């Protein structure tokens, strides 16, 4: 058996062992999911005190400071649906727990392969609960293998989650399998989309669209303070003109500035719009840059 398969099997075996030993109650499982998502957010969009001197104090807070992990759990649980007939028309697939499980499997695989840079430790868990005064003991205990990795090792684990096929039991006799690549999309890609979007600016994003209250104050969104995004706008007086030359059809009118002085004729930005030329074309001399067989 190839080594990587052996390692994967061992990882799964260990994971199942641990899972059975621990015997999570539902409440504990939810805490475990929450801690795992906090661990991903803390690795992807962390607090960055190091940026204060360089960029300013507004660049310090990260995803955990605005409840991104908790919302990501909700989003992942409600964002995808397979409309299982047996669950009714609004049946959704709760992905957050299987995602958290997959991250733990990946963490164990990483450690078994010896590809982690630092040994897993409870000290990496502490920053995940620092901001949370409630139930910190049980939260601490709920941290799984993934949350005990260093932030950079968590990213390495996310990097190897792609080759894990994850099974979600829809009912006793049906399984839905999804590719581990989706995990990275959710905990890295969607985490960034949500963090850098307007999401924090709603008072009630969980309400129907027509009743959402949104404050379009650029100062109200932490990430907008960090990117300098000026908020939602209806327009900008930003027109410079139209690309063109003095003899061609593309643009027209006076020259506003010149883009290419050396070209013959020179390329300008002109005040008036023009149009594309309906040219004769010849393709007989077309040559493939990187040829390949036609199918």
């Amino acid at each position, binding site marked *: 058996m190839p080594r990587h398969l052996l390692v994967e099997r061992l990882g799964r075996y260990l994971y199942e062992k641990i899972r059975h030993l621990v015997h999570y109650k539902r409440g504990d499982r939810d805490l475990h999911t929450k801690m795992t998502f906090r661990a991903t957010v803390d690795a992807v969009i962390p607090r960055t005190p190091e940026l204060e001197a360089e960029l300013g104090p507004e660049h310090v807070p990260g995803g955990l400071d605005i409840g991104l992990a908790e919302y990501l759990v909700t989003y992942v649980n409600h964002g995808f649906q397979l409309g299982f007939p047996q669950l009714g028309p609004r049946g959704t697939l709760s992905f957050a727990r299987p995602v958290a499980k997959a991250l733990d499997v990946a963490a164990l695989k990483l450690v078994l392969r010896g590809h982690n840079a630092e040994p897993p430790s409870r000290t990496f868990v502490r920053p995940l609960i620092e901001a949370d005064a409630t139930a910190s003991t049980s939260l601490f205990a709920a941290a799984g293998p993934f949350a005990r990795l260093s932030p950079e090792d968590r990213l390495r684990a996310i990097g190897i989650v792609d080759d894990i096929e994850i099974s979600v039991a829809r009912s006793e006799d049906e399984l839905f399998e999804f590719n581990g690549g989706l995990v990275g999309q959710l905990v890295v890609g969607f985490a960034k989309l949500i963090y850098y979007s*307007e999401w924090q600016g709603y008072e009630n994003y969980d309400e129907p669209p*027509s009743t959402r209250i949104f404050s379009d104050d650029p100062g109200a969104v932490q990430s907008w303070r960090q990117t300098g995004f000026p908020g939602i706008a209806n327009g*900008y007086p930003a027109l410079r003109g139209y690309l063109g030359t003095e003899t061609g059809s593309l643009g027209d009118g006076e020259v506003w500035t010149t883009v290419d002085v050396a070209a013959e004729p020179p390329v300008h930005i002109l005040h008036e719009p023009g149009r594309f030329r*309906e040219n004769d074309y010849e393709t007989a001399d*077309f040559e493939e840059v990187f040829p390949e067989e036609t199918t």
Partner: protein
Amino acid sequence: MVADAYDAVIVGAGADGPVVAWKLAEAGLSVLVLEAGPFHGNKQWPKPHEDPGAESSSSLDDLSGELLDEQFTTREFEMVNNLLFGPADHRRGFWMRKFPGDGAILQCAGVGGTTLHYTGCHPRAYPAAIDEQGHWPIDYADLIPYYQELEAICEVAPAPVTAKEEVFFRGAAAAGWNLIDEANVTDPGYRPQPNAIRQPDEVLHVDAGYDGDYSAADLTGHTLAVSDISGDPHPRGAPFEEKAKRSSNVSFVPLALGTGNVTIRPNAFVVDVATDGGPTPEATGVTFRDTWSGAVASVDAEVVVLAAGAIETPRLWLNAGLPENEWVGRGLTIHFGDNVMGLWDEDELEGLLGRRTVEQQEGEDIAARFDYPGLGMLQTVGTTPGIGAILGFGASASGFAFQNDTTGEPWDTTGRLVGQELKRLLAGYRRMVQVLVVSDDRPHRRNGVTVQRGVADEHGPIPLVNYRPSEADRKRRDELARIAADILRAAGATHVHRSDSPPTALHLHSTMRMGKVVDDACEAYDVDRLFVADHSVLANGLGGPNPTLTGQAVAARAAEHIQERYFAP
């Protein structure tokens, strides 16, 4: 009300379905268009994501710019969730598709389809991709009359220049490339995007001192706030048909409804195609499911036109048990892409632009391009920060940036960015220009859509998508990424980042190819009276240019053949 029978039933009101509807209805045929998603900006559905609303719409009077203004907030997170491919009901999530690796499929549901979040880019195909690559049974010259007709309707014109386009054009010129002013592109060079967007009012010139509210009372055309990906209903206050971005709901849907012969039935997911069971079967109608109530209904038609897009059209064919053909669902092209980003110092920008920031949130989203027949294209894109973060730094085939050595490469960093590096780079949001790499990937039989019993949602087995680029596909993309980095460097960028994106599908085509699954009139070889008129019939990826115009041109052409074959007087 939806009747029991129509001359033509069209499955899908995306970029292409409304073109077929308009053409057939104009010729006097009765047409029903079934759309899986909601109908925005329509008085029959004042809250399209909250209430089921009415059943269907058949009148131009139903369209409402005011409702579109209300529903299209241009807030990126909200609009992504409202528009991406899923049921209208906001409480429900996206419809699942299985896609390999870290990639994703970005399609919309709703009247207007993916043109709801497209950026208005409406270039023609490269002539050589049609005439020289050996995929197409028709010639580029056959498309030209349709191009011309549709360009006039969609008001395609050279896009305006704002700061981010000026940066790119200066870089392209400095890197030694020439300006292209042609509609039919055969040589490499840079040019403004041919956009189906009404050009901005001259009062928005940087020297004109505009200080208004950008509403229709004040001006016409694009208002130069980046919002096309988020729906762009500007100018606010304009009637539905007068919105600047000519998505198919704004351009062709009013034309279709204006004939009085078209009924559009949103929230209707087609799950089956009925045939008469003869030796060469004939299509006789379809069955659809209401996405709110789950109720199922059937409708008869003289002709059925599939326009559900390159994923759902083959999925429907396969789930309906239509005759097997080795190319159904096969040959998918996605313009295998990438993202290259440049960041500038304030001083550098001062010299280049006369100001210390780029302000990528200004302008049309995508307004400058670089063409290279044989390789594909590049286009600048301005994004709001969330979409920019996921597109530019959210996914990579080469892992996280801290794991990658870039010595000897034209980029400083490559891979997924996280942590301090991500936050530092995005702190420069207002000083960056992003370039999308859009490559001329070729159809390969292994790539495409299959279904598997048991992996199903309420509409049957879900689409399982496979995509693996060939070695040559990869080389074309990598070469374009290098050209992009050179252009950004030539414009003085101090930091260049390459995503090395995993296959992600924004442009989807070639899964029901003309010459393989359908004939050159777009009628299925194996089922009579069944036509396919969407991007899935495109025989290849057009060389790389954005596919909307060519998809619509082929759909318009198919509509004429439908009339000739089955409704000739």
